[in-house]
C-alpha cells in the first residue's frame, strides 16, 4: 500500500519548503506521494528542480489564491 502524505509549508520562504520536503521524503518509500501546500512562488521552480536531481516526479501543480499545491511521487533511490 502506498502512503499519501500532506505537508503544510505555507509562509515558509525558499529554500525552506525544499528542505522540509527533502527531510519528509527521506522517511517515505518509492511510489508514495506527498502533497505540499506553499505560499512562496519560488517552489514553482525549486521543487521541480529538486525532484529532477533526486529522481522524484512532480505529478501535479495547482495555483489558487496565493497558495500553491504540488504533488510529488517518490522515486526509487
Amino acid at each position, binding site marked *: 500500500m502506498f502512503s499519501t502524505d500532506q505537508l503544510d509549508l505555507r509562509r515558509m520562504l525558499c529554500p525552506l519548503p525544499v528542505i522540509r520536503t527533502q527531510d519528509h521524503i527521506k522517511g517515505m518509500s518509492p511510489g508514495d506521494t506527498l502533497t505540499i501546500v506553499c505560499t512562496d512562488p519560488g517552489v514553482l*521552480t525549486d521543487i521541480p528542480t529538486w525532484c529532477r536531481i533526486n529522481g522524484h516526479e512532480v505529478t501535479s501543480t495547482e495555483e489558487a489564491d496565493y497558495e500553491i499545491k504540488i504533488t510529488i511521487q517518490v522515486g526509487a533511490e
Partner: protein
Amino acid sequence: MTTLQELAQNPKKKAVALISGGLDSLLAAKVVMEQGVHVEGINFFTGFCVEGHTHAIRNMKKEKPKRNNALWVAEQLGIKLHMIDVIEEYKDVVLNPKHGYGQHLNPCLDCKIFMVNKALAWSWMEENQFDFIITGEVIGQRPKSQRRETMPVIARESGADNRLLRPLCAKNLPETLPEREGWVDRDKLYDFHGRNRKPQMALAEEFGFEDYAQPAGGCCFLTDASYSGKLTDLWNGRGTRDYDIDDIMLLKVGRHLRPRPHFKVIVAREEGENHYLRGYQQQFTMVEAVSHIGPLGAIDGASLSDDDLKLAARIISRYGQGRDAESVIVRITRNGVSTDHEVAPLPSDQIPADWHV
C-alpha cells in the same frame, strides 16, 4: 570516515562539496569530478542566504520566480545536493563570532569554519562516509575570510585539517591528504588567487557553463549594510541580541519605521507583502485602512499604549490611498479582536528620516 587501509582498497573516492550556488563552488566541484571522484553537494541554509530571500515575498502575478542557484549548480553538475537547515545552530556564529565581523554583521571567517565543520560531521555519518571536503575558496578573493592566513585557520578550527581541499587554489597551498594519497592529481588543480575573476570565467567557458550566478557582495544578507542595520535595530529595540527565523524573514518584507524605541511598524509595499504579513496576525497587532485602499501594517513591540497604536495607525494610513484625506477609518486587530478607529494620516513631513530603519 574510512581508515586509510580501507581507502586504499576502494579506489572510488567520495568528496562532499560545499555548494553556495556561486561560480567558484560550481567550478571546484567540477574540477574534482573530472578526476573521477564521486562528488555530492551540501548546502547550508542559515536563514540569511541570498537564495532564500530573493525568492521571497513578491506579487505572484507580476514576477517570475527566480531559481535557487545551489539547486541549479547541482543540476548542472548532475550531482545530489543535500540541503541542511542550520538556522538554530548558526545563531551562535552570528551573535558571538570568535573572529569578529567583516564590514557589516557578516561573521565570514567563523561562518566558513562552521560550515566546513558541519560538512565534516555530515561526511562522517554512517550512511555517508565521505573521504574529503571541497570548497570553492580562492586565496585573496575576499578581504576578511579568504586570505592566505585564514586558509589554515579554517582547516584547523573546523577539524577538517588536511581533508579540506580547495581545488581552485590548491597549488598555492600545502599538499592535502587527497593530493598526497593520489586521490586527486595536484597537477590538475589550480593556482587562482586575488580578486580577478577572469581565470574562473575562462574555466567556466572551458567546461561549457553559462548563465552562472556571480553574487557581487557575499553569499548572504549579512554583508548588506541596510539589512545589517535592520538587524541591529531589532536587537536595540528588544534590548537583547537574539532572533528567530520569523524575525530574519520579516526584515526583508515591507518598510520598517521605528517611531518610538519600544515599537516599530512594518508596512507592506505591495500585494504579495500584504498577503505575507497577514500570515503573522497571531503574533502582531495589525492595522489596515477600511475606508480607503491601503497596505497592511504590523506593529512589532510590547506594552503598546493607545497613543502608540494611534501613531502607528497614522503612519500606516499614510501609505494608502487615503494619504491626503483628512481622516481614514482603520481597523486595528489584536489577539483576534478588531476595532475600527478614525485617524488622520501622518503628513510625510512629520515622518522624520531617522524613523526609517
